[in-house]
């Protein structure tokens, strides 16, 4: 099966293959409950997505056969590099940042995220902290001052340029 050699191909296959199944499942439940899974073009909201789902399913099947038959030209093994772990940690940090963003607000969370990322990528602590604060303020000035966006306020409802 050459599972390893085509690891990402199989991952992508699962990812895309799940879509038609989701569509069929929702058509049979949510859309049927709303009464829009049958009838003519005006009242049937499920028909067109079903066509897409069948096409995806057929293409996925062909693709699976191609991978099995070894007709995929590029290999796609998992092959982590020396810094893949760093990228994963950064992603984890970003998830924590998103979790805290709405709660603590832009001004408290952003400098912390940036400083840690800068330091992780090898900048000195002082440069990381100074750079993080400067970037936070600059982006805030542009978005709040120039574009009138209200950045996440957090529980302290704090804003500098609004």
């Amino acid at each position, binding site marked *: 099966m050459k599972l390893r050699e085509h690891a990402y191909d199989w991952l992508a296959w699962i990812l895309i293959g799940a879509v038609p199944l989701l569509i069929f499942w929702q058509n049979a439940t949510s859309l049927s409950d709303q009464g829009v899974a049958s009838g003519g073009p*005006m009242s049937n909201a499920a028909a067109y997505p079903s066509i897409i789902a069948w096409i995806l399913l057929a293409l996925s099947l062909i693709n699976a056969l191609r991978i099995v038959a070894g007709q995929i030209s590029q290999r796609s093994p998992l092959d982590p590099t020396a810094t893949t772990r760093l990228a994963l940690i950064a992603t984890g940090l970003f998830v924590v940042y998103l979790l805290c963003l709405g709660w603590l607000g832009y001004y408290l969370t952003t400098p912390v995220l940036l400083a840690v990322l800068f330091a992780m990528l090898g900048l000195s602590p002082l440069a990381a902290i100074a750079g993080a604060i400067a970037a936070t*303020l600059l982006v805030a*000035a*542009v978005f*709040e*001052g*120039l574009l*009138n*966006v*209200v950045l996440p306020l957090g529980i302290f*409802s704090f*804003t*500098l*340029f*609004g």
Partner: protein
Amino acid sequence: MTLTSRLVAAALGLAVLAGPALAEFPERNIESIYPWAPGATMAASQVIADAMGDELGVNISVVSTPGAGGVKAFETAMSRDADGYTLFDGYVAPLVIQPMKGNADWTYQDFTPLWSATSNSFAIAVRADDDRFNDLSDLIAYMKENPGDLRYSPGVAGGIPHMVGAATLMATDTIAQLVPYPEIDIAVRDMRGGILDFMITNPGVYNVNKDDMKVLAVLSDMEDASATYGGAPLVGSFDIDIGMANLSPSGWNWWLVRKDTPEDVVTKLRDAMEAALKRDDVRQRLLDMGYVPTGFSPDQYEEIVGAVAGELEHGQAAIDWETERLNGL
């Protein structure tokens, strides 16, 4: 501030030197949650927001939050604090129609009204060079003889234009094939190309496409409405009663805040909005865009919105009637 002056100010670094926070409302920018995708209607809301912001000395940004027939915008605004920094751009759909259809669990009484902003009536229009129909009577006579042969679009299915369109069909016991379009602008193209026979238009679209369409009747009983369609006749002049009167056959919005907003904040917002809506330049810009400033005060909210809710039930009934007739063809 204009964009240019803002850019210049930023270039000089002035934007960074925002003044110290004042203890009094409003001390920061206000958001108005607008329930549709950007477009001509949003521009009308922005005109009011800008003028109101001038009065308050802050910026009011109109945030487009389309989805679920306006429900998403209301849900978004509802999740914010009741501090007056979030306004609801309360269009009929999320305010009255969606709760009526059971898609939302609030009623219009769950909000504190500011002022009513604008309204726009709808009209039946055909191709400018369509000589089959010189007035509304011709159109109705044709549909009576050939039920279901004509095709029409009210834009989005289930909206107010659809309700008034269906109500007109029901009142005259005629039927035409419904073809919905998410954007009414695109329906104009297909009407010109002969794919559609008539459409329910709004003044904004009529303004842009004047040369290509002929308005047969304005679906309203308000004399002002006729003026936004170059003086076209009202539907009542053909002895047709569509069963919807006053504001109910039109699109309109009423700006709102959450019910538990402090009274002094509400007063400030109301005063600012009143001042903004009374400015001649604001009124003129809105009229030029095809939107009639309504000028209803917060005290009239209960009476006007309450009445509309009842009449829209009639519009919904008309749509159901239409669906049944179409299925039976």
